């Protein structure tokens, strides 16, 4: 194989210059002539019938319109899987924060003042906030006649006597918390009508093409009347997958024929978008005397809140990943997604695969302890290797460097060396290893379209609807394109911001863009290269394309560099011949639907692996946990851009640590109490440990240059590694997140008693 020239290098981000100079345009940065402002009226009750009177608000000076359910011109709904969100609530509200009206006025001040005059009469209905309660027959129903919206079953081997054969069995329940993405840029957007009648929406989104469908359906327009422009996105992490501002803005622009803008406050942002599914997990794991994991039974209940969003997919992913990256012959998993009147939950980095390690990683550690094995030894013994079979019966035939990640993490943190401090501050070390299946999964068509075109300036224009959300997609995918065509990075023009120009490349989520869209771009670019060389052969009067290379924007005969043609000239030659050097290609990821009764199938591909080790210090008086060091060994397949990967790992670790130790919505009766950064705590620079990144490469043959997606796997091991380290330090087991000082003190007291 020829050496890679662009892939594998820490190329500088293509979007960085605009971002450091303040020139990058986020949606809130757009100001237009004649622009008006919109403000959303939201429900203040978790479950109620409503009657809306908007007359007083309409009469307020400066108000142009107050839109409610009756004004929606198409279908008054949206939703990524089930259409169970209303654009505006018509008869009922199901959570606090659901949109009821959108007030449009000449100024934001007027819109906000008038919003107070929208009179919503609530007739309160019984509500339910605990998903276990919500599963009961007599619980208040959120939608339809059952709150259970999904049940995934995984069955492998036989549970009869499985546990009785085990030398050690551990059993416990665990509860993860509902948390917010807390991306730094609150939702905002601008919509306007173009001269030809196209309704254009500028927004920060993860999936512009899907937004276009949702908007078109709600407005009752064909989707080619709608154009979505993706502005710079100030972080996403899954929280920009569901529609927030999109339909309200386009509807208002269409009706009023004026540019309209909205910006959410931080508090409103907390109410408007999805959250991470909190999960209640009943887990039982057994091992034979030699440490071989033998049986696992798990029941996982995820709180979907008032809407389904991605609940099916999240609870499915939780179920598939319930065993952790370990071979276990006998497995029974049931996972459920349940409606409640809580804030709705959806996609968030980790997507179900991030919650279950709280259980499986703590249980494997506990088993090791009881069998007198080290946490490293038990993981090495049971972890997936090439040829292993997952609980769904999927054979991992390549790119499974989990053993290597565990060994490297253990070595780098000197895992076995123990700090024998006896002061009130106790140190401890913990390790966690995880796996993560890329993509939508379960046989759902996971499609990325991409286009590559040689243009008159001699550069390669790559079109893909893959959003840059900060993860570096634009840079990494440009590198893949450059490598595939055989040009330098600066010869690639990457266009991903406009649905009227780009093909649909699926969502910027599920860690799928590098693998899926990367593949689509690679095959389009390879074909473009072939056609470019074919034409060069013709123009240069050669008998073959063998021996041709592209060098600095010139196609030349390797052994006779004087015989050449520039890419600009090549474009002109193509144009002369009426030929388009423009290639469209589609990549569809491999995924086999699972059996409904047994969960057997090949739901995701590829899987990515990681092992993180951490050292913590626990203050036994105050319960405060400091993470001192972290070692992050991350499988990447092949590193497209090591510097971008390191940035992802460090940010992922911070997010995982924050979830474990700090974040708390203070949810009470469906109401988010901690809705700004003074009480919703995320880490500052002072909270972060030293982080050592270890990039482990094991190229995957179906991936573009071997590269797998890492956006989510990089955060998943942080939480269980910290929890295991806390146990190592002070001997308590965290069964409820966050591991707050109060919770630690409570558990320490309980232990002493």
């Amino acid at each position: 194989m020829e050496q890679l020239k662009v892939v594998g290098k820490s190329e500088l981000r293509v979007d960085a210059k605009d971002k450091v100079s303040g020139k990058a345009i986020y949606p809130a940065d757009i100001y237009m002539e004649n622009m008006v402002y919109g403000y959303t009226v939201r429900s203040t009750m978790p479950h109620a019938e409503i009657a809306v009177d908007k007359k007083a608000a309409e009469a307020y000076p400066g108000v142009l319109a107050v839109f409610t359910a009756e004004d929606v011109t198409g279908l008054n709904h949206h939703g990524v899987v089930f259409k169970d969100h209303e654009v505006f609530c018509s008869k009922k509200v199901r959570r606090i924060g659901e949109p009821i009206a959108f007030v449009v006025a000449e100024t934001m001040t007027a819109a906000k003042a008038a919003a107070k005059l929208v009179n919503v009469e609530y007739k309160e209905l019984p509500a339910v906030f605990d998903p276990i309660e919500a599963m009961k027959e007599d619980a208040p129903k959120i939608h339809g006649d059952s709150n259970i919206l999904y049940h995934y079953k995984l069955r492998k081997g036989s549970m009869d006597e499985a546990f009785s054969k085990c030398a050690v069995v551990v059993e416990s329940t665990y509860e993860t918390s509902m948390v917010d993405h807390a991306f730094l840029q609150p939702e905002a957007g601008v919509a306007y009508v173009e001269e030809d009648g196209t309704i254009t929406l500028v927004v920060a989104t993860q999936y512009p093409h899907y937004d276009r469908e949702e908007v078109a359906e709600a407005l009752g327009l064909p989707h080619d009347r709608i154009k979505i422009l993706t502005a710079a996105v100030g972080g996403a992490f899954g929280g920009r997958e569901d529609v927030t501002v999109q339909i309200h803005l386009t509807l208002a622009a269409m009706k009023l024929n004026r540019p309209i803008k909205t910006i959410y406050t931080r508090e409103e942002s907390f109410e408007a978008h999805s959250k991470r599914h909190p999960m209640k997990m009943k887990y039982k794991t057994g091992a034979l005397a030699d440490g071989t994991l033998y049986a696992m039974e798990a029941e996982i209940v995820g709180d979907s809140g008032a809407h389904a969003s991605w609940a099916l997919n999240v609870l499915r992913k939780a179920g598939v990943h319930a065993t952790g990256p370990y071979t276990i012959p006998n497995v029974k998993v049931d996972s459920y997604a349940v409606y409640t009147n809580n804030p709705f939950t959806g996609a968030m980095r980790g997507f179900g695969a991030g919650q279950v390690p709280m259980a499986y990683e703590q249980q494997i550690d506990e088993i090791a302890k009881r069998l007198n094995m080290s946490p490293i030894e038990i993981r090495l013994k049971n972890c997936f290797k090439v040829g292993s079979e997952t609980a769904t019966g999927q054979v991992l035939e390549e790119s499974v460097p989990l053993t290597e990640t565990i060994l490297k993490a253990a070595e780098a943190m000197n895992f076995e060396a123990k700090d024998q401090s006896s002061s009130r501050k106790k140190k401890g070390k913990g390790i966690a290893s995880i796996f993560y299946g890329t993509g939508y999964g379960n046989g759902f068509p996971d499609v990325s379209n991409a286009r590559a075109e040689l243009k008159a300036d001699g550069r390669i224009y790559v079109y893909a609807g893959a959003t840059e959300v900060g993860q570096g997609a634009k840079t990494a995918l440009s590198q893949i394109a450059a490598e595939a065509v055989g040009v330098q990075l600066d010869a690639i023009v990457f266009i991903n911001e406009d649905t009227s120009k780009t093909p649909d490349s699926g969502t910027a989520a599920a860690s799928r863009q590098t693998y899926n869209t990367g593949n689509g771009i690679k095959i389009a670019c390879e074909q473009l290269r072939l056609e470019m060389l074919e034409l060069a052969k013709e123009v240069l009067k050669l008998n073959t394309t063998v021996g041709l290379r592209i060098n600095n924007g010139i196609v030349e005969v390797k052994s006779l560099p004087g015989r050449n043609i520039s890419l600009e000239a090549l474009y002109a030659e193509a144009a002369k011949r009426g030929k388009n050097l423009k290639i469209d290609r589609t990549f569809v990821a491999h995924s086999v639907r699972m059996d409904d009764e047994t969960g057997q199938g090949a739901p995701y591909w590829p899987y990515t692996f990681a092992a993180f080790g951490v050292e913590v210090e626990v203050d036994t008086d105050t319960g405060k946990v400091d993470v001192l060091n972290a070692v992050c060994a991350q499988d990447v397949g092949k590193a497209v851009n090591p510097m971008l990967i390191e940035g992802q790992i460090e940010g992922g670790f911070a997010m995982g640590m924050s979830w474990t130790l700090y974040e708390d919505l203070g949810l009470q009766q469906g109401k988010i109490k901690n809705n700004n950064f003074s009480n919703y705590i995320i880490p500052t620079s002072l909270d972060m440990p030293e982080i050592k990144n270890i990039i482990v490469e094991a190229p995957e043959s179906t991936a573009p240059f071997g590269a797998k997606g890492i956006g989510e796997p990089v955060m998943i091991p942080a939480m269980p590694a910290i929890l295991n380290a806390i146990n190592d330090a002070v001997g308590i087991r965290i069964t409820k997140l966050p591991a707050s000082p109060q919770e630690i003190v409570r558990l320490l007291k309980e232990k002493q008693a």
Partner: protein
Amino acid sequence: MHVEALKEKISFKLNGKEIEVEADPSMRLIDFLREVLGLTGTKEGCGEGECGACTVIIDGSTANSCLVLTSQIKGKELYTIEGLQKGEELHPIQQAFIDAGAVQCGFCTPGMVLSAKVLLDKQPEPAEGDIKRAISGNLCRCTGYKKIETAIKMASDYMKKDGAE
């Protein structure tokens, strides 16, 4: 964003230039910068002084422009992110942020760069702890801060070499 109120003449130094403008003194500085002067590099992440995305430099110190009123900048020297580069040439701190991979979504970046500038202006060779403290009022959800800290160290080297600023 704001009710029309009585305007006043306000003069101050913006990004190195003396200016005098008609402004509503009770407007938040961030709104004045973004909406009146069109300087949208200053970002709003919380509006409550908690995130630092709106950081600007007033008389050599960082300030959260969401908590400052326009009246408070009379006679002061104000820097925003737009004032750092000279034409196309980036300030060494901006270049270091690019080179170190300190930028992801970029929403915290202008504020981070300005906090770094205040630090390096006062302390050209900061210790690790100084760097961490200097950006502890700037939240970043993407990077875990590590590459930002590296960038600030790198910028300190760049500036030493340049002998500039």
